[in-house]
């Protein structure tokens, strides 16, 4: 799993490549939290993230809760249909804003 950070028009984008599971999720959480400190708008780009396990979903949820305490607005972009379906059935999706791609996510965050 790799995370690459970039910035687009004042929005911090973290692109996750690879699987988000019990082996990779804790490191991802630490990395993302470090990188986004001081930002207000964050998009987690999941386009290249193939598999999100139970541990992965929990880390996304915990990230969301920590963003909230820091007044950071955030969205997920490019979640695959299968992962989105799992998120829906297990209830995680109710905690996330999910957009088809980065552009849509940035638009949504700016309109909030």
């Amino acid at each position, binding site marked *: 799993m790799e995370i690459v950070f970039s910035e687009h028009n004042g929005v911090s984008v973290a692109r996750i490549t690879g699987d988000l599971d019990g082996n990779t999720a804790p490191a991802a959480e630490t990395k993302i939290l470090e990188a986004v400190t001081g930002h207000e708008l964050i998009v987690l780009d999941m386009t290249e993230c193939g598999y999100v396990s139970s541990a992965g979903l929990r880390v996304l949820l915990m990230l969301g809760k920590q963003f909230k305490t820091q007044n950071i607005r955030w969205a997920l972009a490019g979640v695959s249909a299968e992962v989105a379906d799992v998120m829906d*059935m297990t209830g995680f999706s109710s905690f996330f804003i999910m957009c088809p791609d980065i552009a849509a996510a940035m638009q949504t965050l700016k309109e909030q």
Partner: protein
Amino acid sequence: MLNRIDLHPTHRHGEFPLRAGKPMPFGATLVPGGVNFSVYSRYATSCELALFRKHAPEPFAIIPFLPEFRVGNVFAMVVFELDYENIEYAYRMDGPWDPEHGQRFDKTKFLLDPYAKCIGGRDVWGVEPDWDNVYPHRARVFFDDFDWEDDCQSDIPFEDLVVYEMHVRSFTAHESAKVKHPGTFAALREKIPYLKQLGINCVELLPIHEFDEFENSRPSPVTGERLLNYWGYSNVGFFAPKAGYAATGKYGMQVDELKNTIKELHKNGIEVILDVVFNHTAEGNERGHTISYRGIDNKTYYMLTPEGYYFNFSGCGNTLNCNNPIVRNMILDCLRYWVADYHIDGFRFDLAAILGRDQNGAPMNSPPLLETLAFDPVLGKCKLIDEAWDAGGLYQVGSFPSWGRWAEWNGKYRDDIRRFLKGEPGMVGAIAQRLHGSPDLYQWQNRETCASVNFITCHDGFTLMDLVSYNGKHNEANGENNNDGGNDNESWNCGWEGSSDDPGILWLRRKQIKNAATILLVSQGTPMILAGDEMGNSQNGNNNAYCQDNLLSWLDWNLLEQNTELFRFFQRMIAFRQTHPALRYSTYLSGADQGTEVSWHGLKAWDADWSDSSRTLAFMCRRPGEQDVSCIYVAMNMHWDAHHFELPSPNDGRNWHVFANTDVAPPDDIVEPGQEILLENQHGFLVGPRSVVVLVGR
């Protein structure tokens, strides 16, 4: 915070650092850096932990519990650096093989943890298993955290509950259900709007603990199709949800999917009761498989005869030793877990009479297990419902040890109402008791109306449509020569056995269904409706569809259109019950509740005919509500001729208005509550043959 000094490894086995574990809690628990494994066995001489990669045929590691990892009769060890999301674990135990004295240890068997919270192996419903698998039901380590937000047990009073008994898979497996993932917890969540539309506020789920649908599977002699252990009254694991009922079971996320479904049901004001089967396990008798308990501590977990055979009070091969202190604690741990971790609102205990037998099978006066459950703090707001009989002949309806806390499936209610419905004479006295919450059964024990869960149909037996369409059972498709299933159905086919196109017969059947719905929903106590009865679901006369995972059992949602009048009738009757406090006493009407009164009537007002030949009865009940006095009159004529009922006065300047009359064709058979129509003749009502009339005084 300081780091604990007891969380560092002290030993190593191959790649895995280890240390002595904590004996409590039992099961596999995540601890910082590792997993604590703890398992009880009194008689095992040694124990090993076997680790498998997910679905792998062989374990990749076998780690013995060292002597210093044993505390009392518990083996406990922490294994560090485990990729716990991707492993499955088993135990192997060595000990005596001495069946005559109840010992059946076999150190070659991989054994499932009795406290496994997540079980793989039957991840997707109905997928043919690998029959040579050395470890078919596989314990997994799972995250028990879940964000419930502000969800809590809804704690609806028993008397306000309308229970809907359902099988998770049957409810949505049919293509007409039009759901994304048929037959799953997720699909149940999709159908919540329907449940709300119907108006029920509690679902009682047939077993959802992990079971093996392939247990005793065989071809049907009628269709050739494979028969499965469909209902699931045969537990593999008490702590784990049925993976095959979860659309996410293939990802091992059944725990989250079920919790999310419960959370959504709660959000919509619907409680969740689980049907739990603590009377036996899936291991069968001495010829059965060793899955877990038999290889871990046979003498503890099962009731054994002096010769070491299995007592069979369950009719399923073995009997769980419920009043052994270890098993008792396991059951308590299990129920607490479902309440605390899954926010379950109540339990219905299958063949609960077994829970009151001692270790030799004799019924006890004050069974410690039942008493413990009645007073347990974690279960304190939980509904406890017993099925007060077992397959060993113990029948305790009305005498089940309850401590004023247990409610029960009132089997006498079902039998008496069925007899009354089909026009049997001599039932009127009993019917008055049943309508009134069965004080003859429960009052002497200081139990109240809510001790009685009233039902006319349940999963076990005919559906309501079949109750009025068949005189006898038709279970040939089950492959047991029609010997299975009950024979005491008290059913009546209305003139023709099975499906018919005779308009007169069809009219009478629909009327009988409405009569049943009306009587059920005006009875004091807690009504329970079998899912599908509200749309006229049939099982073609099969009264024991436990093995029929097919169109016979699956609810056909097209029926909703075909039988709109039945759905509407149920819906309005439920709404009517919820509108009128007079139909929902919490205590018997012995003067405890100020201003409430019930009176019995017959063809003459104030003069019920209690004689043996009578088939008519009416009652009037009044109770002050929040805004107004709720005043109801119900006339029941189960005779084949119409009869004129003289009406008592509703008093206080009120007039009678008609809410329902099952003898009238739809849409005039029932109105919306509040839209009742003023009755022209306030002094009498001609009640049609085999009909029920409901009036409101306002």
